[in-house]
């Protein structure tokens, strides 16, 4: 079975940062216009080869932090650095190393899951001779059955989530940012997804995720970042 863990392919159009670099959050404050601060002076370093679970009550800023880490939302103050990059000053260079599962899915509805993964790899310039086989293995790993050849717009919530997980890994990222990745997955699919993430982490990948499944966080995460504590 092809390796699903992060690596830096040879024919990469999008230069990636050295995968051994940490993701460093430095004194980040996030406030929505006119609202109170959701994150206050948050500093934390996420190390490669680890999985960190974001915990805290609803509204404590878990999704906001993931939006900030994925360059979808700039911090009000403070910086997020990955290697030598300021994430919000060079988002394209940073995102070349990142796979994201958003809580709200947005897949290309007129492609199949197989085509979606191929599209991502080709767009990101990481398509090579082994990509098709690797993607098939990824879709096997998330237990997306023969319906992987149907359009994603026809998928159930669970199938969409499985495709999102595979899509996040399609371009062989070094960093995975996951917002409720287990939501809508059945028991077997949850176990499969968990196994995939553990393999990713053990292969040197950096995982940051939010989930309300405390039992799964216990099994996957080396550390927890409690956003409701401050």
């Amino acid at each position, binding site marked *: 079975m092809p390796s699903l863990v992060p690596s830096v392919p040879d024919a990469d159009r999008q230069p990636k940062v050295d995968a051994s670099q940490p993701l460093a959050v430095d004194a980040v404050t996030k406030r*929505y216009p*006119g609202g109170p601060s959701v994150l206050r002076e948050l500093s934390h370093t996420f190390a490669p080869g680890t999985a960190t679970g974001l915990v805290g009550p609803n509204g404590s800023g878990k999704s906001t932090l993931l939006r900030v880490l994925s360059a979808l939302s700039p911090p009000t103050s403070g910086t997020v650095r990955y290697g030598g990059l300021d994430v919000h000053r060079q988002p394209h260079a940073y995102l070349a190393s990142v796979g994201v599962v958003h809580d709200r899915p947005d897949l290309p509805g007129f492609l199949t899951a197989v*085509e979606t993964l191929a599209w991502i790899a080709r*767009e990101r310039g990481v398509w090579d001779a082994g990509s098709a086989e690797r993607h098939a293995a990824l879709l096997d790993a998330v237990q997306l059955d023969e319906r992987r050849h149907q359009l994603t717009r026809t998928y159930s919530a669970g199938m969409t989530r499985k495709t999102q997980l595979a899509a996040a890994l399609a371009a062989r990222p070094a960093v995975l940012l996951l917002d409720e990745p287990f939501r809508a997955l059945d028991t077997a699919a949850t176990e499969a997804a968990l196994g995939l993430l553990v393999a990713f982490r053990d292969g040197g990948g950096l995982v940051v995720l939010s989930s309300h499944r405390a039992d799964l966080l216990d099994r996957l995460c080396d550390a927890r970042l409690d956003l409701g504590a401050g």
Partner: protein
Amino acid sequence: MSALLPGDQSRAATLFRIGAFAVLALTLGLLAATAASGLDGEGRGRLVRYVGILIAGGLSVAAPHLLFPDPAMRRLQLSNPNSGRLLRRQLGRWAPVVAVLAVPAVVIAGAARPLLAAEGVLSIAALGLFAWVRTATLGLRVRAWERGEKGRFYRGLTARFPAFKFQVPDELVPSFGLTAEIFLAGGALSIAGRAVGDGPGTLVAPAILLAVTLALALRSFGSAQDRQRGAFDQAFWTSNGVWADAFQPSEGTGEGREPIAYDAVYWAPRAIRARVWAGLVSLDRRLPLGRLVALGLGLVAAVHAADAGAGPEVASLALVVLGVNGAVALTATDALVPGPLALRVGGAWGWAAARFLMNVRWLPPLAGVLALLAWLTDGLGWAEVWQWALIDLAVAALSAGLVTLASHARLRRLHA
């Protein structure tokens, strides 16, 4: 573009988008033809410049809402296009808007006045490019204000004189600056055109704005060095993030205005009141519709007060009636009313009625302005006030029906 976002490759979606732009271009063309009927060459020149100011006013308010947040933000993150491709995507979304807005100038000028048409088209192109460059970099300016790197003068001034403070958070003040910049640029072009009068000299001012804007764009993110550095991707993601935050549904609490209270919608029948109320609250949060309606009614009043003639008067009223009642199409988007919810809550008749009532709320201000004009000026009779009120009601019903029909057909296809 197709390789960038394959989800947009549905033929139906593409045809719908082309059809929508064609209908818009046709509507603006008809309005322009109505406004220009009976005008001589000088009058047409004046009208092209007035329309330029009007378009500047519209762009100044609408540009950020049209560009941000990009509806495919998450899909773009999956494919992570580089600066050049993001630039092409955004310009690809913006160019048709500018092209459609240039239609009135061509129609008003007519085939006999190519120089006037060229002035109008060049002005709209320059203004469109200027609006895009300033809007595309808005997020960077908002962020600089947020971090206290800019805006010190404003903060110092408002600390001493609180009356000067805008009713929005300080970091959103650059969006007011953007509105003013675009409107003033459009106004300056019109004034320059009027000062020159006619002849090739009328092309100078728009050509200068175009050249300056191009230089600005190249300086901001056009040079090879900037492309290497990825300057546009920073502007793109930051501006999208800033605007997504401003409309963040779950955690953003900032809102300048109080939403309409449920009880204030007492005039809607109980069976559809909740839908009307939710639609109005959502619409008001998505678009500054009140400001746009005020702008439109101001235009109607100005055109009538200036006794600009039957053509411009009818065209200005038609523009307001179509614009006000067309905005309800936003309630057919998933962002305002998710598809499955729209199908589950009531049938097509209920939604059509609810959308009709959402439209009808603008009838009193329209009728009020018209009544005032009928009372104060000779240009408008009381019969016309009634006539336009009835036209507004008819357009409100028609747009509500068409939007509901199109929306339910799409949803049944998607969620059947």
